[in-house]
């Protein structure tokens, strides 16, 4: 026996909130991408906990796909960031403001 399911959910929730915070508050494109990675990781932990709660493998399969998608996201995201950096010379999203309403 390990711990109540609720404790793991709570832990994953806090980790997820940290990810949101990092993605929203840090004014740096790379940090925003890292924030998304933290969010994905938190979701993965919640999935494995749920898989353990019901003794079902689906939750673990989900995590495997999260890994694959995180890898795709980082490759596309970083390629785009490098592309943008070379054009504008900045990683601060505040400098990207040609499009304004």
């Amino acid at each position, binding site marked *: 026996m390990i711990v109540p399911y609720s404790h793991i959910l709570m832990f994953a929730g806090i980790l997820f909130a940290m990810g949101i915070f990092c993605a929203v508050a840090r004014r740096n494109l790379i940090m925003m991408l890292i924030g998304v990675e933290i*969010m994905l990781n938190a*979701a993965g932990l919640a999935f494995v906990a749920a898989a353990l709660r019901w003794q079902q493998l*689906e939750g673990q399969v989900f995590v495997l*796909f999260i890994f694959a998608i995180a890898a*795709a996201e980082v490759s596309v*995201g970083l390629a*785009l960031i490098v592309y*943008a950096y070379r054009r504008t010379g900045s990683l601060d999203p505040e400098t*990207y403001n040609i*499009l304004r309403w």
Partner: protein
Amino acid sequence: MMNVWTLFIPELYCLLMAVVFFGLAMSARPNPRRDYFAALFMAGVGVVVALACVRLEGTLFFEAYRVDLFSQVFKVMLAMGFFLVVCLCTELNGIEERHHPEFYLFLTTCTLAMMMLVSSVELLTIYVALELSSYSLYILVPLRRGHGVDVEAGIKYLMVGACASAVMLFGLSYVFGVTHTTYLVEIIHVLPGVIGTPAAIVGLLLVLCGFFFKLAVFPFHFWAPDVYQGAANQVTAYIATASKVAAVAIIMRVVALSGGSSKYLVDMLVTLSIASMTLGNLVAIVQKDMKRLLAYSSISHAGYVLIGILSMSATGYASAIFYALAYLVMNLCCFLVVVKVSHDGSDLKIAQLAGLHRRAPLLAMALMLAVFGLAGIPPTIGFTGKFLVFAAAMEKGYVALVIIAMINATISLYYYILVVKAAYLMEPDEELPRLPVSIPTKVLTVALVTAMVVFGVAPSYLLEVARAAARMLM
């Protein structure tokens, strides 16, 4: 074994198209005309294939994939949207010539992913298909021939999209944790029993966030204007039409899971719907750029579609399907004009429409009808769509919501009329030459206009199909 694969034919055909474009992308010499005709031909056949498969029914891949009238109707719409967007690519000046095969490749994979999305009835398949369609679009946006705007739009789209999908994933983990299954068929039995618990309702709402991002509903709307303006005109046309249709389909599937018994969910959807309509319409008034205006109008239309979905009745779902189709046709007609008027691939200001009625009378007429359709003026298909959606909501007794929506429709009339005024009453500062409109473009314009008017006056056949498709959800 044979008959199992026949169910999968539209997707297999899309896959074949993707392979062809992948091959073309490897060829050393750019040849835009070859790419265009290959795309046009194959997309045309794609519509025929999707239509031929419309009556198929069955399940595939351990029940994870269901082919029924609902999914097939949406596949036809997606194939049509893809075909019409490819039709707009005669002068693909927004994208460098050597990247044309890649452009078609990403459009095809996005269509393929959305076809799989509307057929999936299992959470993991839905998630993966959604990601495939999103990534194709993330790369399409910065594909524009550069003046810096495309990079910015691409980054915003990717960042907001990645956050939305992570939020959705967290919601999925709650839903899985509550219902201990990933199959929608089983969830639909378990979830109404536990919908009262916060975990279930929060999970479902977080899952919906991911789809609301695709549809550009209120809290996830802010990518829309930037991406619409920053992406190449044809890409914007695709994002504004086909991807919206797929989002409507999947939101219906997920909302239908709740079994219509949750008051919180309905309240939440009502709030989001009102917020999207009002915000979209009010901000659209001050727009100067045609694509930004269409972006805000798409946000408000997302609100109208939600009214049909939140009715959670067969009529409501049928009206939402009809509305999605109407929106597809009207919006494509608008983008047809945008693409043709700014044939060098630049952004189109509303002021640049001045004198359009003399430069290209047919296009001006099509624009007027499409814009009136978006505003919901009879006898266009847009009026019928709005009428059906409002009627479904009235049936459920959401009178206040319908009144707010009608006030919104009136506000929207203002900026739509500004567009028509620019095209018909304003004169350009200097005399501009007539716009060359080729025969195929004329045929396409006439076909779209006819569809808008005919199905607006006599919607009964389409409505029957939509009702039959909606019954598959219940």
